[in-house]
């Protein structure tokens, strides 16, 4: 009887934990892909892709300034398409149910006096899972990494 109970417990208890783990891992994979999609979309000036990724109430801090989704998309539209300006150094995704935090760092190549200046940034992005939209970026910002 005891053995049967153990078997039942072993089968039942890990199930939600496993389900949670696989759910978090799927969310993590999706979010990592979206982070890359964002960078690629930005380098191609593809505002349609960015429009799908960003929430309409996005809180975005760009170079210390708070900008709306509309302002950010307009800026991207005006920019000259660039490739390899941003390269990720690494990121960690923490999933809290329907919310996820991404912390990481990247290098940015900025034109400066006919040369390219390399700047390193640490960022925090917040993603929220919304019905009908999936994972959507609701907040993002970065700080320059001091040498």
């Amino acid at each position, binding site marked *: 009887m005891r053995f049967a109970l153990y078997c039942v417990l072993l089968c039942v208890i890990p199930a939600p934990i496993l389900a949670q783990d696989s759910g978090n891992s799927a969310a993590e994979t999706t979010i990592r892909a979206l982070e890359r999609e964002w960078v690629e979309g930005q380098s191609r000036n593809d505002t349609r892709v960015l429009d799908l990724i960003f929430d309409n109430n996005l809180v975005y801090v760009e170079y*210390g300034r708070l900008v709306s989704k509309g302002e950010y998309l307009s800026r991207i539209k005006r920019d000259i398409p660039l490739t390899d300006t941003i390269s990720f150094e690494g990121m960690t995704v923490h999933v809290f149910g329907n919310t996820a935090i991404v912390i990481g760092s990247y290098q940015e190549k900025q034109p400066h006096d006919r040369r390219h200046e390399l700047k390193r940034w640490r960022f925090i992005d917040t993603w*929220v899972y*919304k019905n009908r939209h999936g994972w959507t970026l609701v907040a993002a910002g970065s700080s320059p990494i001091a040498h």
Partner: protein
Amino acid sequence: MKSLACILLIACTCLVAYSQEGADRATQSKLIALERIGKLQACQNKDIKTLDSILDEDFVHVDEQGAVMTKAQLLSFVQSADTLIFLTDAMIVKLHGDTAIVTGLFQLKGAARGKPFTKQGRFVDTWIRKGNGWVAIASLSTPPV
């Protein structure tokens, strides 16, 4: 009969929208109060117990120099600082169900190991609803423009 049903439906919709708006406003006020309790009171008074209850165990902070701090590191910094005086301004709360983003301007004046310092810029905090309350899971500070 049809028009009466329509009026009732519109009235119910308005009532639901109005009560939702009221609930959102109450949540926004609560989050601004929590920001003030955390930054203005708990940091200044080295109230670790309050900070511990406001910050999630997995809380992460990125400061304006790009340095990462865990909850334990942040609490230790507050505990060991000689003085910490926070000022906040222009706070905005954006709600996304059980997630909230609070952004605003900050100024931090303090001293650590006898050395005075001043920091200022913009913060972006992420809060999630846990049980009956809210906890902060991430905080980013960026330097001023």
